[in-house]
């Protein structure tokens, strides 16, 4: 007898499709809300974007002409509707300051931030999770105290100060890493004129091109700012891991496992960790999303041309299309990471699959 293969279960696929649709719906609503709030704040602030581009000499007539050209003379709801309609078609408008399309400007700045934030999150997770576990398994011990103090320092020390001290020590004194910027000028030239850019992320692009000297230079440039961001997120991740893990280690199933004679590493890293992972994924995703907004101070000190400095510059020059464009990207990053962590939950926790 041949067995007839069972058709794919509709009951298993449906929740996933439903969740994705729900996610997309959330994305749309979140973005609309974000845009609306940013738009209102931008209009409430008594700063005239036109003044920042026409210069001090401009006459009232010139200012009025530019205001009309930019559509700033229209009622606010109309400006908002036009913006949303254009954004839906992928047109984020042109920057008031430079006149260049915001989408292409963001495409240039975002990869720099993405590269930095990803590496920072990897550092933060690789160090933060074991440190949190270490602290949780020996509460009150010296190692717990060390993790706590190091974590507190990450929370409380101003990031620009840490950045400058980091530069002074590792670049200025020890010569372990390269200075600010993404590449040394000569490698930068090489990257720009002889290599192909696929993603805008130098580490990936140089590796894809097989340009290992450029890759090495990029690593030595990124290691310090990424390490700094990693430290800040490590502080958060280790504290949360400690608290989640301590909670799990107090559960009855852990006592049962220990009574059954299971090795301690298995109790912690297999049984307890499985349950800790669920909330931890959210913590890591949130910390990643936070870094993706672009850390303005880190970017300033390390002369890193990322999204944070782009949005800040845009805010200072009241360049609303650029601010809104940046907001859209940050919003998309947040919602996408949220969706990704939801999907990861489902993989980790069978209860979430229903």
């Amino acid at each position, binding site marked *: 007898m041949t067995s007839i293969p069972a058709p794919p279960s509709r009951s298993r696929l449906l929740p996933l499709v439903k969740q994705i649709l729900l996610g997309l719906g959330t994305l749309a609503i979140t973005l609309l809300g974000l845009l609306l709030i940013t738009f209102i704040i931008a209009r409430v602030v*008594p*700063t*005239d974007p036109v*003044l*920042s*581009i026409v*210069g*001090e*000499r*401009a*006459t*009232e007539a010139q200012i009025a002409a530019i205001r009309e050209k930019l559509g700033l003379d229209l009622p606010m709801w109309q400006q908002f509707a036009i913006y949303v309609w254009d954004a839906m078609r992928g047109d984020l408008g042109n920057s008031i*300051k*430079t*006149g*260049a399309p915001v989408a292409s400007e963001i495409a*240039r700045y975002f990869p720099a931030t993405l590269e930095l934030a990803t590496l920072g999150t990897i550092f933060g997770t*690789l*160090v933060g*999770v*074991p*440190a949190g*576990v*270490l602290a949780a*398994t020996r509460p009150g011990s010296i190692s717990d105290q060390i993790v706590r103090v190091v974590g507190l320092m990450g929370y409380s020390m101003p990031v620009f100060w840490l950045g*400058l001290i980091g530069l*002074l020590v590792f*670049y*200025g004194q*020890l*010569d*372990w*890493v*390269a*200075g*600010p*910027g993404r590449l*040394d*000028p*000569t490698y*930068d*030239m090489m990257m*720009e004129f002889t290599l192909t850019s696929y993603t805008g992320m130098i580490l990936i692009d140089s590796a894809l091109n097989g340009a290992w000297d450029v890759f*090495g230079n990029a*690593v*030595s440039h990124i*290691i310090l700012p990424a390490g700094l961001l990693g430290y800040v997120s490590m502080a958060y991740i280790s504290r949360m891991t400690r608290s989640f893990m301590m909670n799990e280690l107090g559960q009855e199933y852990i006592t049962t496992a220990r009574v059954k004679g299971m090795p*301690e*590493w298995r109790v912690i*890293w297999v049984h307890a960790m499985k349950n800790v992972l669920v909330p931890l994924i959210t913590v890591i995703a949130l910390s990643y999303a936070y870094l993706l907004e672009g850390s303005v101070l880190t970017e*300033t*000190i*390390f*002369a890193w*041309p990322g999204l944070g*400095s*782009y949005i800040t*510059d845009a805010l*200072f020059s*009241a360049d609303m299309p650029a601010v809104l464009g940046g907001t859209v990207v940050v919003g998309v990053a947040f919602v996408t990471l949220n969706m990704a962590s939801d999907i990861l939950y489902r993989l980790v926790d069978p209860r979430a699959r229903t």
Partner: protein
Amino acid sequence: MHLKHGLGRAAVLAALLAGTAPMALMAETPADTLVLADAIDDIVSIDPHEAFEFSGVDLNNNTYDTLIELDPTKPGELVPGLAESWSVSDDGMTYTFKIKSGITFSSGNPLTAEDAAGSLRRVVKLNKTPAFILTQFGLTPENVDQMITFEGDTVTLKTDKAYAPSFVYNCLTAGVANIVDMKTVMANEVEGDMGNAWLKANSAGTGAYVLKSFKPNEGYVLEARAGHWRGDAKIKNVFMQHVPEGATQRLLLEKGDIDVAREMTPTDIAGVEGNADIKVQNDVGGQIYYLALNQKKAELANPKVQEAMRWAVDYVGMTDSILKGQWVVHQAFLPQGFLGALTETPYSLDVEKAKALMAESGVTLPLEVKFTVRNNQERLDIATSLQNTFAQIGINLVLDVGDGAQGLEVYRGRLHEMTLQTWGPDYPDPHTNASTFASNPDNSDEAKATGYLAWRTAWDPGAEINAATDAAVVEKDTAKREAMYQDLQTKVRDNSAFVFMFQQARQDAMRANVSGFYAGGATDSASYWTVTK
């Protein structure tokens, strides 16, 4: 056990970090390369006919040339640029320029009179922010093809009236009058933009360098042109890195990773003093710090109160402390370096004299004045000093702090009482400041003449000063013109709604082996082709 593994992983990571060390080591920058660090996020455009910010104009100064130039080695002196000679007709309304032969653009195209005329026409037709520097001679998009013409190797420029020739020539040294390769530019025209979008990422000039790459908020790369008409530049490659933070620039400079740091703070400058590898070059900039007193507030229109205020500013105290190295005492509307600029500084802090003047003024004391100041540390420091000294003569300053654009809106709307402002010249001719500080043809609210600083602060200079400003801009004799501006500055300094305090100083820190770096002073822009290492 696994916990140890966790630590082991951290140790591996630390080892990885340490393993990058050899790659990071970098010696001095190459001998034929100049690496600069500056905050270049002010750049809006590098199209020479649109660029109007310091960093963009500095860049263009090295990739383009003008018909007439300011000589980097003799500041203030006009020398031939792309024109070998020039003259003005007897009626003072027609200027003729003979274009040098044998000069090529970076594309290889030869420079022609057609390019020169086409470039100046392009300024007027594009009509971007700095276009007024040329349109003030009566040029409009409609008439410019008739007003600027060419024939053979000669370009002719007609003006609507007989201005002082020195005024016209000075304006032609400004960045907006750079000559572009019209064939290349127009070949890259998109939707009638006259190549504007293309020139925001490329250069098409006759300058000592050609733009290899420009990344906003990141930096730019220039490459020297072989066989340049001025002689080949010693520095073959110029790298400009956008480094906004002064302390970071200092670290890069100390390490020898950059040659010139252009945006170091006084603290950082003080920090490198005594370092034999680094030298600091002092220069002046064109910006002026001044107080504007709104004449709609009766007490501030009282000449005795105005004079008292001039004696109640701790000029030297501020330049010796909070403004050290950044600003110098300067008490006239023309910055040092301009034709006719007054260098004397008759006012100093004299509380007793100021008190006596306040008593003579008849104003009820204490006088409360709202003081609009931009939210920036340096300005707040100045405001605090003024608050202190003004309080001693019976004037209580109430700070009204906001961001730059907010303060500017208040000022342009005549809504301030007293405001602390800076003003930078738009082009290297005295008229640029005279026309705004010493001219206000219609002081009524309806005039909305926001381009005049005198109007903004509701000050009517009176028929005599208005007429003197108009006369100075058409005076043909340069020596007489100089005397006229000196007289104007004295009058405005001693009796107006303005209190002039400081002129910008500039400090560029560089490696000791760098010489010939010219920052441009108050009238010109940076030159890289003069640098040797």
